[in-house]
């Protein structure tokens, strides 16, 4: 029973993979055409692809403090690869892990190892912005294509890395969208902004602050390693804003939300994609209720096919943040392999013309590696779960 579900889901996914492959060569193909082509190519492709000794790699934290996030991302890539391998007995693609622990100090040596492994044709990752900056120059020099499913830092694409791609919009898209949401949808006149002084959190908070301008009545930074945020809480309590945006990760967001509510702050809490994790709800408890979370990531769970395939491969689990993006990223590489690209230059070139419907969005990159479209989704915490509200206009 389970197995058949798996197979069915696999077949669907594989067909999707081959759509993308077909589209790769046919760069003019539109979305509607794709869906039409799907049915035809799926059957034809099963015996079509042969390859030997090729693999793609996952680069990101699998252990250490950020390990859980990395495991979720890797799962998406893993799903795509195993679907591909099931469908192509003649082309078994490997998935090699590079566990950076999210540490920029370890990243260059791992990147070097990935580069030295000639079978690796593409990298899903690096997962974080810091390690991206440390590792990407190496990938760039080696001409090894990367698609990051999660590093959203705004200035990553300013580095003229020709190998750089990302499967979701950057914080330069997310920040203004958050500001818009706060001002338009929440209609907040007074806004408080807090960040965790990290690259991601402060970067996002700064964009939000700049966009909101005079509406920001109070702002502060917290030390994410500390347990007590009373200085920031007192400040917010005094300024009594209508909404508070926090730029940072979910663990601290949970503690902060709780302390804000305990102090009697009633403002609507707004967070960025770093908070989109069940850990936030667990940490904040009832204090999380009604919080708004934005993400440039799509909700993988709301794509029924993808969610079903995911649960089939990882029983009892549902797609987590960035899992769907990682799936799309891996699919792009697999499409390249399916199109007969077996060297890095070929894969890189292929990505430049890639244009296919992914689980999350239409995947097509501009010259800087930014994915087309500025989709930023809003989510809301309701009854102990993060539910998607929709796109932020």
């Amino acid at each position: 029973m389970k197995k058949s579900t798996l197979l069915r889901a696999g077949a669907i996914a594989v067909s999707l993979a081959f759509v993308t492959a077909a589209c790769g060569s046919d760069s003019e193909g539109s979305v509607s055409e794709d869906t039409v082509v799907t049915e035809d190519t799926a059957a034809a492709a099963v015996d079509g692809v042969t390859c030997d000794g090729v693999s793609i790699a996952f680069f990101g934290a699998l252990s250490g403090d950020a390990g859980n996030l990395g495991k979720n991302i890797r799962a998406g890539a893993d799903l795509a690869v195993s679907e591909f391998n099931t469908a192509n007995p003649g082309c078994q693609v490997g998935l090699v892990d590079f566990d950076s622990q999210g540490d920029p100090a370890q990243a260059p040596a791992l990147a070097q190892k990935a580069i030295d492994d000639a079978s690796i044709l593409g990298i899903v990752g690096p997962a974080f912005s810091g390690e991206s900056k440390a590792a990407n120059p190496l990938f760039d020099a080696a001409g090894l294509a990367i698609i990051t499913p999660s590093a959203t830092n705004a200035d990553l694409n300013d580095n003229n890395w020709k190998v750089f791609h990302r499967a979701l919009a950057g914080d330069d898209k997310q920040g203004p969208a958050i500001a818009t949401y706060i001002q338009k949808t929440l209609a907040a006149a007074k806004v408080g902004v807090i960040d965790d002084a990290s690259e991601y959190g402060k970067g996002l908070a700064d964009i939000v602050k700049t966009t909101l301008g005079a509406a920001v009545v109070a702002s502060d930074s917290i030390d994410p390693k500390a347990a007590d945020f009373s200085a920031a809480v007192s400040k917010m309590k005094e300024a009594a804003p209508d909404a508070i945006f926090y730029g940072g990760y979910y663990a601290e967001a949970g503690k902060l939300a709780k302390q804000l509510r305990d102090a009697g702050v009633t403002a609507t809490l707004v967070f960025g994609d770093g908070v989109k994790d069940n850990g936030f709800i667990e940490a904040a408890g009832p204090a999380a209720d009604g919080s708004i979370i934005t993400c440039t990531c799509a909700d993988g769970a709301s794509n029924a096919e993808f969610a079903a395939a995911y649960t089939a491969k990882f029983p009892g689990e549902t797609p987590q943040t960035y899992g769907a993006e990682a799936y799309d990223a891996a699919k792009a590489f697999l499409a390249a392999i399916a199109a007969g690209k077996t060297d890095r230059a070929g894969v890189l070139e292929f990505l430049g013309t890639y244009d296919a419907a992914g689980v999350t969005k239409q995947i097509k990159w501009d010259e800087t590696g930014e994915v087309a479209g500025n989709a930023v989704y809003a989510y809301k915490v309701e009854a102990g779960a993060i539910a998607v509200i929709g796109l932020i206009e």
Partner: protein
Amino acid sequence: MRDWLIYRTFWDLTVTGVALGSIYALVALGYTLVYGVLRLINFAHSEIFMIGTFASLITATNVLGLPMLEAGDYPYRTGFQLVLILLACLLGSMVLSGAGAVALERAAYRPLRGSGDQFGAVVLAFVTAFVVGLVFFDTPKSNLIFGIIGTGPIAWMYLNIFRRGRQAPRLAFLISAIGASTAITEAVAIWGPRDREQYQTPRVLEKKTLFQLFGTDIRIDYVIVIIGALLMMTALLLFVNRTRLGRGVRAVAQDVETAKILGVNVDFVILITFLLGGVMAGGAAMMFTLVYDQSKFNIGFLLGVKSFTAAVLGGIGNLKGALLGGIVLGLAENYGSALFGGEWKDVIAFVLLLVVLMFRPTGLLGESLAKARV
């Protein structure tokens, strides 16, 4: 704008600062006691605190059966039941932290003093066998069994090596402490049910405002923390100054050799010192979970560093200094964060320490546990 804010929020910051400072102070006591007696920075004391927060969690959920969250709401309790739960958690924290501190002393420090005993040998042997087992086994259970089987012969061997031990250099104690700290933290992170994620302790105390002071809400949890810290502090001072064992602690703090000649059982006194420090850290841990209701494997590290800073600020080895240092540090961090922004919090703490040491090289109240009665 900032000046206006700090004026209006001054009393708010004072209350939270004193509450956080009280927790610093209780943890600082452990550093100060051990330092006063052994001249050792007990780097692993932060993990004793961490164990305490988990003890509170285990007592509340596993022993008392409280749920972490009740239908999306906190499992508030009131009246007699509330007091009982809080006391049980306090007891659990104190017992486990105290036991942890004692075990730490006997396994990681005592062998370095050249007087390692069976207990230390067994603990070290078990850990050794366990680590070796990691090479062969993947599941914690089989590893555990392997560890227990391996313990016997290795412990016997260790005991023999202990017998010819002599006092190690002080740096060795520090590194052993760092090693123990790393091992404890990582063990919780690896084999804890939630890995490296945060744990939530059930919130049984509703954080009601008791009264207002200078326009600031005074919450019940802060009041409990401040009063609790003062009570524990007083009890410790009474113990050290009024009891025979306390005199022993002071004697060893003053001069180990003389104390030995006078017939004080130095190893036992050191054990008591660690126990006291652990119990205080356990109390601090329970109060910590009361205010912040959460815990994590690495929660002790930064808090430990801060508490040690507080101990030095007040004058290391000085019990009252630990209290003063903790509260001064808690307040300085709060006021400083409000003035300069929270991202500078730790800078403020350390600059304060530097400035104080510049003018008072042995801290605010001077050092010496031996003179704690002054």
